[in-house]
């Protein structure tokens, strides 16, 4: 029954072949991870069980923070089954059990692979896996409990913002805590040995079980007395604006408004996608910096320019400008200018991207001693490339919008982003090469600024004079 209910509540179903594929892939990845650790890190394999537990808990908690509040409290399909004689506990358990099963799979992949890798430590791996899963379940129940408390006790007008703050706040807290914990562990492996002495699953299993059952009782009480009322409060928040009296206003710029509404009503697009972009940039920068010797790229501001241009290139707002805009179907027969729409879409993409550029620039100024003129040139370069990339992303999405069936806009426009990233990095590498080989007798930063001005001018000219391009 839980399975059927889950399908009704979340409109989601997977075939057996898909699950088998996930199991094979998970098993392989887990085995590979254990192999690499045992081969290339000198500490005994058992020391890494703690690290694996930590990574698994981190991964599962992030998934739970993202899924549980959405599936439990803001899920509109729950309303459809409330009229049937189904207990509230069954509704909540159908959702929580499903998430717990997926998390069990993740734990099994992580620790089961260790069992395959070194069968003599199978008992320890099993115990660590069970403890880890119980901790993850405790986390799930805590998240569910907090969600129910927010939905029941926060004022109806504040409900939605409460959920957004809870989800994003806890997400950021978990990420920051994890980074602060993992970096010292990986840099000083003796910490692992110390932690192995402190963390013994068999020692803490009873306390964990006790917490598990206590939290389960608390959650049961919360579901019985607060859940449904809280759920209806959240639904009222969503539809509360219908009855609100709207003051008559004069829309000065409808083009700006269309894009502004598209961006601001999608929290994933603004928040998670920017987090994802920042992570991409960090990974990309690390890869680029580590391999500079092989690329033979040398110059005074090379280390600053490449990450800066990567920041500009991965602009979700511009790369989803059309594929994420449901209104685009009406543009063809409404008396509106395609060029103006495009212009304001790129301008908004520029403004949202500029916040990342400014953050990056402030970071550079704070941590590196750069002359004032060069700092200004770097900002000008970042801003110009930001507009250039926003234009390119928007143009690619205008000419080839993605026809996705999914409503999840988080990952929209990735292909466009990759193309913009490749083009912008290729342009920067070309600038570095030309100045490094002294083919152009200007220093790198002024030359890069001049090039980016030229690129922006070409793009603006195309927008101003290319009527055919925009079917205007």
């Amino acid at each position, binding site marked *: 029954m839980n399975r059927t209910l889950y399908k009704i509540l979340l*409109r989601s*179903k*997977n*075939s057996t*072949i*898909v699950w088998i*594929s*996930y199991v*094979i*892939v998970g098993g*392989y*990845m887990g*085995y*590979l991870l254990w*192999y*690499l650790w045992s*081969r*290339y890190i000198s500490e005994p394999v058992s020391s890494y069980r703690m690290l694996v537990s930590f990574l698994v808990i981190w991964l599962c908690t992030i998934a739970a923070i993202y899924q549980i509040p959405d599936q439990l409290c803001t899920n509109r399909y729950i309303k459809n089954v409330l009229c049937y004689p189904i207990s509230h506990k069954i509704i909540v358990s159908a959702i929580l059990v499903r998430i717990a099963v997926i998390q069990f799979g993740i734990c099994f992949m992580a620790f089961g692979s260790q069992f395959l890798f070194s069968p003599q430590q199978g008992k320890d791996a099993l115990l660590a896996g069970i403890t880890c899963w119980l901790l993850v379940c405790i986390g799930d129940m805590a998240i569910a409990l907090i969600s129910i408390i927010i939905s029941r006790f926060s004022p109806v007008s504040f409900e939605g913002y409460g959920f957004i703050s809870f989800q994003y706040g806890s997400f950021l807290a978990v990420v920051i805590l994890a980074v602060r914990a993992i970096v010292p562990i990986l840099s000083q492996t003796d910490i692992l040995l110390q932690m192995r002495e402190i963390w013994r699953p068999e020692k803490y299993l009873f306390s964990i079980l006790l917490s598990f059952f206590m939290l389960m009782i608390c959650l049961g009480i919360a579901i019985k007395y607060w859940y449904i009322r809280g759920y209806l409060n959240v639904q009222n928040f969503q539809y509360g604006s219908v009855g609100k009296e709207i003051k008559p206003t004069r829309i000065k710029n409808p083009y700006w408004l269309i894009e502004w509404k598209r961006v601001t009503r999608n929290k994933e697009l603004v928040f998670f996608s920017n987090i994802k972009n920042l992570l991409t940039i960090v990974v990309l920068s690390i890869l680029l910096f*580590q*391999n500079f*010797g*092989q690329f033979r790229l040398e110059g005074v501001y090379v280390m600053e320019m490449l990450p800066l241009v990567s920041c500009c290139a991965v602009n979700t707002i511009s790369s989803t400008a059309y594929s994420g805009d449901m209104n685009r179907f009406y543009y063809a027969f409404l008396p509106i200018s395609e060029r103006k729409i495009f212009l304001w879409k790129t301008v908004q993409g520029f403004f949202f991207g500029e916040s990342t550029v400014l953050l990056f620039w402030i970071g550079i100024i704070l941590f590196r001693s750069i002359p004032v003129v060069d700092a200004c040139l770097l900002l000008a370069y970042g801003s110009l490339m930001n507009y250039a990339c926003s234009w390119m992303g928007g143009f690619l999405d205008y000419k*080839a919008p*993605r*026809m*996705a*069936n*999914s409503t*999840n806009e988080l*990952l929209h426009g990735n*292909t466009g982003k990759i193309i913009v990233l490749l083009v912008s990095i290729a342009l920067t590498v070309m600038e570095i090469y030309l100045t490094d080989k002294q083919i152009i007798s200007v220093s790198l930063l002024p030359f890069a600024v001049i090039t980016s001005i030229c690129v922006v001018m070409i793009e603006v000219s195309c927008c101003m004079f290319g009527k055919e391009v925009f079917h205007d």
Partner: protein
Amino acid sequence: MVRKILKSMLGDNLTENNEKLAMVNFGIILIMFVVSAVMLFFLPEQIPILHNGATNYPVPSVLGVWLFPLIALIINMTFIKQGRLSKMNSAIFGILLIVMLMFYFSVM
């Protein structure tokens, strides 16, 4: 089988176009698996799968050779799940196949 997977993942959004694209993607992934299996006979005992600057991290070929096809399989599942099947994405699988072949020839 592909149709069943697509039906279960996409439901009513299953169209003739995305079915065809999924077939193409699965076909490329199948080729990747077959090529990897064949290349096992020609590859050295160990192949590098990671590198940090100048340091390489080799693993046995029997283990490392499946990395590319499995990554492609995960990406394809994700594309299907999110309804993101497109010609561009199929082209990316083609590029991945070429990259895989180039990598194998470079380590031979």
